C-alpha cells in the first residue's frame, strides 16, 4: 500500500520534471524535415554518366514489387541497347518499400527522400517514364551497366568491357 503510493508520487514527480524538457513535435510544413539520404520516397529512373538510360527493361522490379504498381515494356534501339518502351509506376499503389531498388541489376530504379506527392486527381498519381527519368546518376556515380556487362552493343563489342578478357576462341586448341 505505502509502496504503491510512493510509486504513484514518483510518477507525478517524473511527469512534473517534463515541464522543462523540450517538445518532440516537429511542426512539419513550417519546420523543414531532415530526411536521411537513404529515406525511401518517390521513385526515379536514373541515367548513366553518358546520359543514357540505365534501365534495361529486365522486368525484375515489376516482379519484385509486392503491390504490382510497376508496368513496363521492353524495346531495343538500333545499337542493340535495351530500354523500356514505356515505364509506368502507379504511386497510389506504391508502398515505397524499396524492393524494386534492391532487385534492379543496373542501379536504374532508385528511391529518393521526397514524399510530397499529393494530388487532387487520382490519375495524376500514375507516373509515366518522362515523369520518372532524371538527368543525373542518383546514388551511384560512374556506373555504366553496358561498360561492365558482356553484352555487345553499338561501339562496344564482346570483350571490350571493363576488366573483361577477350572472348575465348572455341576453335583454337591453345589454352
Amino acid at each position, binding site marked *: *500500500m505505502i509502496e504503491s503510493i510512493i510509486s504513484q508520487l514518483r510518477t507525478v514527480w517524473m511527469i512534473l520534471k517534463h515541464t522543462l524538457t523540450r517538445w*518532440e513535435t516537429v511542426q512539419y510544413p513550417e519546420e523543414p524535415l531532415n530526411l536521411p539520404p537513404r529515406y525511401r520516397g518517390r521513385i526515379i529512373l536514373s541515367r548513366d554518366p553518358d546520359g543514357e538510360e540505365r534501365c534495361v527493361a529486365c522486368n525484375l522490379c515489376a516482379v519484385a514489387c509486392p503491390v504490382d504498381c510497376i508496368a513496363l515494356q521492353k524495346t531495343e534501339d538500333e545499337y542493340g541497347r535495351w530500354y523500356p518502351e514505356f515505364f509506368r509506376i502507379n504511386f497510389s499503389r506504391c508502398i515505397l518499400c524499396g524492393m524494386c531498388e534492391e532487385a534492379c541489376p543496373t542501379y536504374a530504379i532508385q528511391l529518393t527522400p521526397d514524399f510530397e506527392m499529393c494530388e487532387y486527381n487520382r490519375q495524376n498519381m500514375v507516373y509515366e517514364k518522362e515523369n520518372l527519368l532524371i538527368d543525373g546518376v542518383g546514388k551511384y556515380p560512374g556506373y555504366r551497366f553496358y561498360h561492365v556487362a558482356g553484352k555487345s552493343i553499338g561501339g562496344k563489342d564482346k570483350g571490350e568491357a571493363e576488366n573483361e578478357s577477350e572472348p575465348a576462341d572455341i576453335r583454337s586448341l591453345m589454352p
Partner: protein
Amino acid sequence: MEQETVIQEVLSYVVIFGTIFGAIGGAAVLIWFERRLLGLWQDRLGPNRVGPFGIGIVLADLIKLLSKDDWIPPFSDPVVFIFAPTAALMAMLLGFAVVPYAPDIHVIDLNIALLFFLGMTSLAVYSVLLGGLASNNKYSLLGGLRSAAQMVSYEVFMGLSLMGVVMLSGSFSLTDIVRAQEDGWFIFSQFLGFIVFVVAGIAESHRLPFDLPEAEHELVAGFHTEYSGMKFAMFMLGEYLAVILISSMIATIFFGGWLGPDFLPPVFWFGMKSFAVICFFILMRASIPRPRYDQLMSLGWKVMLPLTLVNLLVTGAVVLWA
C-alpha cells in the same frame, strides 16, 4: 444613503454576472489550457494552430458544438435525458455562489456556505446518474452505475474531511474560514483533511484518475455516450466548472483564500492559488492511472474514511484541550 444602496445593488449584479460569465468563460478556456499543459508534460505541443497560442480553438469548439445536430435518441427517456446535462451545469454554477473572491466580493455570504457547496456538488452527481440511466445504452448505464458506486464511497469522507476545518474555525461560513487562517493556513494544521479532500474533489468532478463513469478506454464515453451538441457541451462545461469550483474551494479552505501579502489585491491572491490547484488537477490527469472501481471503493472505505475519522478525533482533542 439612497445612492449608496443603489451602488451596492449594481455592484452585486456585477459580481453575479461576473461570476456566471467568468466561470463559464474560464471553463471554456480551461479546456484549451488543459490541452496545452498536458502537451507540455507529454513533450508535445497541444493545440497551437488557431489564433495566438491556439486559444482560438475555444471559439472553434464552441461553433462546432452549437452547429451540431442536437439529437435525442428515440430509445431514451427524453425528459430525464434533457434534464441531466442541465442539472450538471446548474448545480455547479450554483456552487459558485458561495465562493468568496475577496473580503467583500462574493455573490452571497451564507452562514452555511460549506454545506451549500457540498450539497450542490453532490447534486451534480445526479446528472451523471440520470444521464447514464436515461440514455438507455449499456455503456451509459455502466457509467451511471460506476458513478453511483463512486459516489457512495467518496461522498462520506468528502464532507467529513472538512469538519476538522469547521472545528478549528468554528463556522460553516467560508468568509469566516478564510479569516480563521490569518495566522496559518489550514493545509498545515489539517494536512490529512487536505489530502482526503483533494482525493474526494477529484472524484467529485469526475476527473482522471477517478473518471470511472466516463472511462473512455472501457465504456466508449461512459454516461455521455449518447449525448451530442449542446447537451454534451453542458456536461463538458459542468466538468470543467467542477474543476474550477473544487480548485477555488481548496484554495479557500486550505490555502487561505484571498489572504496574502499586501502588494497585490486579494482577488489576485485568490485567483493565483486557485490557478495553482487547477494546474495540480491537470498534473494528476497527466500522471496517475485510473483505478478499478472496486479498488476505488476499498481505498475510500478502508483508507480514506479511517484517515478522516482519525483526523477528526485528533482535531477534536486538540480543540478541546488547547
